[in-house]
């Protein structure tokens, strides 16, 4: 049993930014899988669902996400071991797609540059720590996560492997690295078995200059100047068998970070092992794993209307990536951690050996809050009552890599 650590939330001095409650006409789920993208839509009851797809059939779709200010503007990361990285964009909610600036042309005049898939590290490419202790050059592999701006549909951040942060301000036509991130001790980052990907990008809704990112086997980082400079925010994280230095500033295997827009200084983290919480924008962390059956896992998310209600999916261990005892259980804490309850109604409670990946959980802003997650077995489960009961929306997709949700008006 892990030691229980109580953490009191600190009062938030900033004006609250509530996540708008929607009496929406419906919701749209954006599901990225190993073999294409799927778009699932439902009305506000979230009982019956239409399935569209596969889009980009046969390609790995690491992530899709819509612009908060223009929900029909979607971005997708399409990748292939054969043909590399493609960025796709839709301006009609996923009905049609285009590679920005990369469409067919038969005349040389005004020809697009075809650079929407060009991710080139700024300046000298630099090196990071390699498995044998030597330094290894950064090599772009794929885009793991796309985070559209909160205010401009043309601006999007991209988290990539090998870990770096890119930004477009022209709707995905061109991308430029925010290279200050790799100056935050990047030479000490070392890839884990899953790759050195930048998988989490959080934009502070109350402070446009503040951005958080998290990197597998790199750690968590914060910028307070819109991405120009960065500093590690890993104080309090413990990784005893991965990092011999108990005070290591970087190198922690952060799996996911989440925040609620009304309290952007309160962060919740699913680390490789341990659920962590920070009440000071990442300056320090404390463990809130509490009574979880295991604190290994990948996703973590926050209820849309209750800033202290969080969700995780405990996984047996770093060696056995499936739920304990073959029972798929989402755990919810209504106290910001430490005290957790299993949510099982409608989820398989025997013979279930799937995983839920870090980008494969999302919450909607309807009332009551909807919670969704996808599995490596191809199921997407949804709950229209904050996790009280679940239904399988689809059962037989390819392995799910990511799930996002949008309200439809």
């Amino acid at each position, binding site marked *: 049993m892990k030691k229980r650590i109580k953490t009191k939330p600190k009062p938030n001095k900033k004006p609250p930014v509530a996540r708008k409650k929607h009496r929406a006409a419906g919701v749209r789920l954006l599901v990225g899988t190993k073999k294409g993208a799927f778009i699932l839509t439902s009305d506000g009851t979230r009982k019956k669902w239409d399935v569209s797809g596969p889009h980009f059939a046969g390609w790995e779709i690491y992530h899709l996400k819509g612009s908060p200010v223009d929900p029909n503007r979607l971005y997708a990361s399409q990748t292939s071991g054969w043909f590399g990285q*493609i960025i796709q964009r839709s301006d009609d909610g996923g009905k049609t797609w285009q590679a920005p600036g990369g469409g067919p042309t038969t005349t040389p005049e005004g*020809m697009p540059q075809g650079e*929407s*898939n060009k991710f080139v590290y700024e300046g000298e490419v630099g090196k990071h720590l390699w498995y044998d202790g030597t330094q290894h050059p950064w090599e772009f592999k794929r885009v793991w996560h796309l985070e559209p701006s909160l205010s401009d549909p043309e601006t999007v951040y991209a988290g990539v492997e090998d870990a770096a942060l890119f930004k477009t301000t022209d709707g995905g036509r061109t991308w430029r690295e925010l290279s200050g991130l790799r100056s935050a001790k990047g030479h000490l980052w070392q890839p884990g078995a899953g790759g050195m990907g930048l998988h989490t990008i959080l934009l502070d809704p109350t402070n446009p200059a503040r951005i958080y990112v998290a990197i597998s086997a790199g750690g968590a980082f914060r910028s307070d100047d819109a991405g120009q400079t960065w500093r590690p925010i890993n104080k309090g994280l413990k990784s005893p068998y991965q990092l011999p230095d108990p005070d290591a500033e970087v190198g922690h295997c952060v799996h996911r970070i989440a925040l609620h827009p009304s309290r952007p200084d309160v962060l919740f983290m699913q680390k490789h092992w341990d659920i962590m919480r920070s009440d000071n924008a990442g300056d320090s962390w404390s463990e809130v794993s509490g009574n979880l059956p295991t604190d290994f896992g990948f996703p973590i998310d926050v209820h849309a209307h209750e800033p202290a209600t969080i969700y995780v999916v405990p996984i047996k261990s770093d060696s056995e990536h499936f739920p304990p005892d073959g029972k798929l259980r989402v755990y919810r804490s209504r106290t910001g951690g430490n005290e957790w309850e299993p949510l099982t109604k409608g989820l398989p409670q025997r013979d279930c050996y799937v995983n839920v990946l870090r980008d494969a959980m999302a919450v909607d802003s309807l009332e009551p809050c909807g919670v969704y997650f996808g599995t490596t077995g191809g199921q997407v489960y949804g709950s229209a009552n904050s996790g009280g009961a679940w239904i399988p929306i689809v059962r037989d997709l390819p392995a799910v890599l990511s799930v996002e949700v949008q309200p439809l008006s």
Partner: protein
Amino acid sequence: MIRVLLPFHLRTLARVDGEVQLQVESPATLGSVLDTLEARFPVLRGTIRDHGTLRRRPFVRFFACQEDVSLEPPDFQLPAPVATGAEPFLIIGALAGG
């Protein structure tokens, strides 16, 4: 006129059916065919060769007259049957699992 046959996923990406026909200045080389292809279909940039270095991606292969010419340099002149359009130039996604 050069006939180029793309692999399935790149045909989908470029939104073409069947072969692509390209006008390439003589003598047609491996590099000039790929340059012309990417100029006509910018979305293919980076999918066959890396941006910048223009090195062939590891799991992409080139065939001309049933010969694997993947390891030839960019100035390699394509054989006459390909240069005249009698035979297609093949771009193949290599057998690589997945």
